[in-house]
């Protein structure tokens, strides 16, 4: 191996790519357009940066305490409350939730006030999606307010002379302001702290669709550009610059490494820029493990470059290289969950997708962004990516050797 020859080949190939300004479209513009476009289109979990929505159906005026609860929910910084003074069928609430129009739907039954007055258990229905983080946040707030309402109702009943189960000794003991003060400033306070992110293994735990679209289209366009570059190798064979390379001083190993590393360097620059731009633009947090982030990018780019090289050695014409590049450049991302999250596909497709390098890479990104995983947790997927990179590079080198005497 001669680093000078390898460096000359890498520099030449990068210079050629830079010479064609149209490449910027495929390297940077298209991935960013797709990231934005698909991020916008992928429903509530993107929500264009808007807050999750809790819709409340019911006659709020029927019960002052309940009305106060809804008002308190409305002061949350984490979601907004849309109150509808109508009743709604559960089917409608479910439809809104499944359509990702809202993160939660609260239905107050028409007979709520009457039930309370009659000392019966009033019925309140709450719909939320346990797979969505925004939905989980809304549920926590609703749970807290319902608990507060329930304890207040129970306390009022204890001191209500009309209630059958009231305690006459406490008849004048209930002090509404004292109750409110004690609720706001309890004698015992439970402090909870979330360390890292949700660890639900099979759940999609991203807050914003761009947390998926940014890494996925970065990965997809890296792979696509590499596969489309396979045509260059075919053209080098056809116009016999490859023959010239072969009879010059570099060994076959130098040539293979030169071709591989040129794609590798380009992919790292492309990937690094896209991740950076997306981070600055949409504020995406790639997690707490820079090492895992670097590793997944390095391995995915290596796999992509090797795949492009292998395709270049297999294709017999420029048209064939283009066609195969398009098939694999679109097919692998689709099967691996780059177009849409693997989590929305059937179980067997998820397993199949995670056996592919695209599925492995995006799973690592989801784990880093959504679950706060580190290198140790994502190691199986990184090993998978490494396996693909080595396998494809070895196959490409073996094919490349066929050109040499």
């Amino acid at each position, binding site marked *: 191996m001669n680093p000078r020859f390898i460096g000359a080949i890498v520099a030449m190939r990068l210079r050629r790519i830079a010479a064609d300004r149209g490449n910027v479209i495929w390297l940077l513009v298209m991935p960013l357009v797709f990231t934005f476009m698909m991020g916008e289109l992928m429903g509530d979990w993107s929500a264009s940066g808007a807050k999750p929505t809790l819709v409340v159906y019911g006659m709020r005026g029927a019960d002052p305490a309940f009305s106060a609860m809804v008002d308190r929910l409305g002061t949350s910084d984490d979601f907004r409350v849309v109150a509808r003074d109508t009743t709604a069928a559960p089917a409608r609430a479910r439809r809104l939730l499944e359509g990702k129009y809202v993160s939660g739907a609260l239905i107050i039954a028409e007979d709520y006030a009457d039930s309370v007055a009659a000392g019966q258990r009033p019925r309140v229905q709450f719909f939320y999606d346990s797979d969505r983080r925004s939905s989980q946040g809304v549920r926590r707030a609703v749970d807290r307010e319902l608990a507060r309402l329930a304890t207040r109702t129970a306390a009022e009943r204890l001191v209500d002379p009309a209630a059958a189960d009231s305690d006459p000794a406490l008849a004048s003991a209930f002090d509404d302001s004292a109750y409110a003060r004690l609720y706001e400033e309890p004698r015992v306070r439970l402090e909870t702290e979330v360390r890292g992110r949700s660890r639900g293994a099979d759940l999609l735990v991203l807050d914003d669709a761009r947390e998926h679209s940014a890494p996925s289209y970065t990965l997809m366009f890296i792979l696509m550009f590499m596969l489309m570059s396979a045509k260059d190798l075919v053209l080098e064979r*056809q116009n016999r610059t490859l023959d010239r390379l072969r009879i*010059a001083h570099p060994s076959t190993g130098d040539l293979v490494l030169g071709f591989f590393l040129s794609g590798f360097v380009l992919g790292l620059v492309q990937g690094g820029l896209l991740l950076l731009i997306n981070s600055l633009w949409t504020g995406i947090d790639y997690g707490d493990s820079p090492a895992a982030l670097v590793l997944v990018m390095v391995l995915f780019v290596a796999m992509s470059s090797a795949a492009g090289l292998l395709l270049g050695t297999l294709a017999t014409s420029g048209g064939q290289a283009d066609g195969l590049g398009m098939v694999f450049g679109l097919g692998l991302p689709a099967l691996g969950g780059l177009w849409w999250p693997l989590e929305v596909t059937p179980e067997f497709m998820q397993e199949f997708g995670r056996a592919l390098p695209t599925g492995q890479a995006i799973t690592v990104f989801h784990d880093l962004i959504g679950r706060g995983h580190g290198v140790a947790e994502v190691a199986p997927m990184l090993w998978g990516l490494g396996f693909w990179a080595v396998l494809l590079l070895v196959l490409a080198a073996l094919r490349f050797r066929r050109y040499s005497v």
Partner: protein
Amino acid sequence: MISVQDLVKKYGSFVAVDHLSFEVERGELFGLLGPNGAGKTTTISVLSTLLPADGGTVVVAGCDVGRDPGGVRRRIGMVPQEIALYEDLSARDNLRFWGQLYGLSGSSLHTRVDELLEAVELTEHGRQRVSRFSGGMKRRLNLAAGLMHGPEVLFLDEPTVGIDAQARSKILDLIRRLNDDGLTVLYTTHYLEEAEQLCDRIGVIDQGRLAALGDKDELIRQIGDEDTIRFVLPPEAFDDLVAAAAAWGAIGDPEIRRGRVVLRVVDGGRALPQLQAWLEARDLPLAHLEIERPNLENLYLNLTGRALRETT
């Protein structure tokens, strides 16, 4: 400098080079002449280590191509028929790149690039992208790229295909100059006139086999020295002509082909006045006269039964 003995190269069952043998001396400009598909490019590919031979022995600059391909590669330069350049880079960047791959760097690389750009008259266009070059300029740069490391032997595979006469003349002049400076050149072509003008010796190759070998005069002698005279004659006078022709040095009896008499004679210059006098005596015109000296086209026709231009 180049020794090819019983070279065989097959693609599956197709025999592209069939027991080919020839030698090229140091400093010689040797031509391989033949139509497309004759095996010229395959031969040059084996000689330059790009293809393995299926039989025979090839030694280039003292190195066996099978046993020491690296040694061969260090000593040869190759100019393929295709424009083997990166057209999206400048001429200077192309030469610099090829120079780097031959181990040149720094000032020696810079100097060599300048020298070659000057040699191929492209100094003023050094920073221009190759894609903007004319066909002739690309061909000259293609040639320069094969010379970056100062090879002992240069393989040129039809380096003038597809360019005009002026550009071709420039390239041939350049090759002649390189050869005058001591470079051994193996030149393949299907242009007869190029082979005749340029090469010290010529090997005529057809269907992978060497059909003839020698310098131009030797080759022509293989088909004899006779000239051919063609003209139109009324059919009733043909028998008289047959009787008279022997006295003018005719070789064999005259024949009629495509409506014209074909008369082969030892010396056309002497036979023609006698033919003229014979025609005037009979008050016959000399129509559609054509005199043909022996040439490589005749040789090729003679060897293969086909005209070279019909096969290219």
